[in-house]
C-alpha cells in the first residue's frame, strides 16, 4: 500500500507521538488521508517502531517513504518524510521540538500531553507548518506560546 501523493515534493507527511502501548498522543497530518487510512498508518508505525531498540538506527524505511523517530521515555516521536530528505536534520528537529515541550510544560511527562492535548497542537503549529519546519529558535517559540497563553 503506497502512501499516495507526489513524492517529488519533499516534505513531512505526518508527525506522530505514540506511547509504547500504541495510544496516540498527537497526530498531525500534512497530507490527505481517510480516517481508516489514518488508523492503519498509526498501527503500522507503532508496529515498526516499537520492535527496534538501541542497536538500531533512528531511521526506518516505511512504504515508499521513511520515518525518523526517537524514543523519549515511554513516548515515540515519529516524523514521516521523503526518502531524499536529510535524516539527521529531522532528528535534530524532533529534539528541538521535545526541548520546547519540556520548557513549556516544565519537565514534561506523558500526562501533560494527555490533559493538555490542544496545547500540544499549538506547539506543533508554531514549529511546523505545511509539512515544513517553521520556527527553530526555542526562545522565540516559547515567547509566542506564552503570549498565546495569556489570551486564554
Amino acid at each position: 500500500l503506497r502512501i499516495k501523493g507526489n513524492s517529488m515534493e519533499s516534505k513531512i507527511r505526518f508527525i506522530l507521538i505514540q506511547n509504547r502501548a500504541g495510544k496516540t498522543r498527537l497526530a498531525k497530518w500534512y497530507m490527505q488521508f481517510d480516517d481508516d487510512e489514518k488508523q492503519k498508518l498509526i498501527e503500522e508505525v507503532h508496529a515498526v517502531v516499537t520492535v527496534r531498540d538501541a542497536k538500531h538506527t533512528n531511521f526506518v524505511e516505511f512504504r515508499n517513504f521513511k520515518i525518523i523517530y526517537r524514543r523519549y521515555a515511554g513516548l515515540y516521536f515519529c516524523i514521516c518524510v521523503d526518502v531524499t530528505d536529510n535524516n539527521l536534520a529531522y532528528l535534530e528537529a524532533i529534539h528541538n521540538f521535545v526541548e520546547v515541550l519540556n520548557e513549556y510544560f516544565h519537565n514534561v511527562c506523558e500526562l501533560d500531553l494527555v490533559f493538555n492535548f490542544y496545547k500540544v497542537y499549538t506547539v506543533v503549529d508554531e514549529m511546523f507548518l505545511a509539512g515544513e519546519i517553521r520556527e527553530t529558535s526555542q526562545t522565540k517559540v516559547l515567547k509566542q506560546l506564552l503570549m498565546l497563553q495569556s489570551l486564554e
Partner: protein
Amino acid sequence: MSPSVRLQEMIRVIRSARTQGEERGIIQRECADIRAQFRQGDNGERSHSLAKLLYVHMLGYPAHFGQMECVRLIASPRYNEKRIGYLGAMMLLDEKQDASLLITNSIKNDLSHSSQYVQSLALCTLACMGSAEMCRDLAPEIERLLRASNSYIKKKATLCAVHIIRKVPELAELFTPSARTLLSEKNHGVLHGAVVLITELCKRNPDTLDQFRKTVPELVQIMKGLVTSSYSPEHNVAGISDPFLQVRILRLLRILGHNNDTASDAMNDLLAQVATNTDSSKTAGSAVLYETVLTIMDINSESGLRVLAVNILGRFLLNNDRNIRYISMTSLQKIVQTDHNAVQRHRGTIVDCLKDQDTSVKRRALELSLALVSAVNIRSMMKELLIFLSFCPPELRSQTASGIFNAAERYSPSKRWHIDTILHVLTTAGGDVRDETVPNLIQLITTASELHCYTVHKLYRALVKDIAQQSLVQVACWCIGEYGDLLLKGECEEIEPLQVTEDDVLDALETVLQSHMSSPATRGFALTATMKLSTRITDNVDRIRSIVSIYGSCIDLELQQRAVEYNALFKKYDHMRAAVLERMPVMDKNSPGYTNGDTPGEIKEPDTSKPKPVEAGLLSEPASQVCDLLDLLGGTDTPLQPSPAPTSTPTTTSSADLLDLLGGLETPHSSIPTVSVYEKNGLSLKIQYDKQTETEVTVSLIASNSTQNDITSFTLQAAVPKVYTRSIFKLHLCSLQIDSFPSTACQPSISPL
C-alpha cells in the same frame, strides 16, 4: 481557554476505565452529552464540548458530528472559541468534507483581522487543510500578507504559500516576485520560509529556476554569515548557527547549481569552507556536513571538492553513531559508479560494517561491498562475503547469494576458484539461490573440462554428507551421471584420493531418490544420472536396470515417464543406449541474457556437434534427453512437444533440426505478416515478426540470394530514432543464420549505429 474542569474531568474518567468495554460506555455517554450541548448550548459551552469531542476523536472514535460545530465556532468573535474551532477544522475537516468550503469566508475575514494571532490561526488552518479551491480563492490575500510588515505573520504566510503552490501549481507566478524580496529578511524564521518557498518555485518551473540562479551570490553571503560568526545566538544548536536554515540553503543551492557551471563555480568556495569548518562532533553539525556533501556531488564541482566530499563520507563511516554510518553508506552507494576509486579507499571500513547489528546497516554495507568488488580484490572480498553469508539474517541471504554469483562470474581468477565459490554458496545457502543457478553451474562445469575429475569428487563428497540442499544435490547428481567414470577411477590430482565403488555411487543416488527431502525435480536428476551410469560402469548394470524398472510404477508422473522410457531404452533400443547416453558436449552460453527465461531471438546452437539423438529419427525416449539439454540451455518454460515427424533432410545442419524443435516452442506468429522490403537484382529482404514478450520484440531480417554469384560486402546496419536512445529502447542484435548465401565469399557484417 482555561482547561475546562469538565474537560479534565472527562479525561480522568475515561482513563479510569479498566476495560475497553467500559471505556466505550463512557465515551458513548459523553458523546450523547456533547450532542445535546451542540443542539442547545451557547457558544461558550460549545467550545468546551468540542474540545471534549476532539479528545475522544484522538482516541480513535468517530467524531464527524462535530464538523458543523467547527464552522460555527470559527465564525465566533472570541479568540478562545475561534481557536478551538480552527483546531477542530484541522483535525476533523479535510478536502472531502463539504463543510470545509463553508469556512473559506471566515478564513478570508480572519486573514485581515486586527489581531495577528487570529490571522495566524487562519493561516495555519489554510496551510494545513486548504483544498485547491480554497487556495485559489485566498491566494491573493496570502500574497498580500507576504509583503506585510509583521515577521510573525510573514513566517506563516510563506509556508502557506508553499502549500498553495503544491495544491495549485499554476499560482506559482503570483508568488515569485515577493519570494525574491524576502531573501533580504533578517529574521531567520522568515528567511527559512522564503528559502523553502523559492525551492518549491524552482522545482516546478525551469524558467523560475533560471531567474533565481541570480540569487546564488546572495545565498552564499547568507551562508557565510551563518558559518563564520555567531550570527544569531537564539538559533544556536550545539554550536552550529541555525543548522536547519543552513541545510535548507544548501538544498536550494544544490538545485540551482545542478548542471550549471556558472552557478556551481560561484558556490565552490563556500562549499569548501562549510565542509572544512563545520564541527561534526554532534548531530547538528553532521547534518549540515551531510547536506553539503550531497550538494557537492550533485553540482558541477571541481574534482578537489568531490574528493573532499568523499573523504567526509569516509570519516562518517568511522563515526561511533550508527545513524551516521548508515547515511554515509546510503550516499556512497549513489556515487560508487561515478567516483569508484575514491570509494574504494574506504573498502575496509565498509566491509567491517557487514558485522553491524542493525539489519539496515548490514544491507547497505552488502550493496556497497558488492559494488566495490573488482578484479583486484576479488579473493579477499569473496572471503568476507562468504563469511557474511553464513551469518547474515535470512532476508538478506538470497541477495547476497546472487551478488556473490555475479561477482564470481565477472572476476573469478580461475575456473576452479569459481566452482569452489559456487559450491560453497550452495552448501551454505542453497535454499536461497535463484533457479537458474543450477543450469548455470552445470554449464560452467562442462566448460572446465580439466576440472571434471576434481569437481565430481568434490560434489560426491558434498552429496554424501548432506542431501538437504536441493540445488547442490541436483548439480551433484548431474555431475555424477556425466562423469561417474572419473569418480570411480579414484584418483585426482587436486584432491585427496578416495576410493569409491560403483555400489557407493549407486547407493548415494538411490538415497536421493528415496529421500523425502528431495523435490520431484531433484529425483528426476537422480534417476537420469542413474541411467547415464549404465554406460559408465561395468558391474552393476543390473542394479540400475532394477532401479529403473521400479520407478516405472512411481506415482510421480514425470519420474514414471522417465523410468518407462529408460526401461524401453534397455529393452528395445539397447543398441542405441551407448550413443544416447554418451558424454554431453561443451555448452556455450546462449546469449547475454541466457540466464533469464526470455531469451531474445534465436538460441545459438553449440559449436560442436549436433546432438545425436536428434539425427537418429526422433522417437519418444530421446526426447527426455533433449528435454534436459534444452533445460540446461536455460531455454523456455513451455513444455517441449517432441516433433513427431522424423527430420527428413540433413542438408541444412542439424542445428536447424534443433531449432525446428524449438520452433514448436515459440509463441505462434502473431497476425503481423512477413513484409518483403526489398526485391531487386536477385536479392530479397524480408522482415519477419518473430515474437513479442513484455519487454522485447524480436524481428528477423531474412536475406536471400537467388543469383548465381556471391553477394559480397553485405552490411546490416540498425538504428533507432533518437527519441528512443538510451534506456527506453535497447537494440539487441543476435545470431546470424547464414542460409542461402553461398559460403565463403560473403561475410555479412552487422553493426549497430
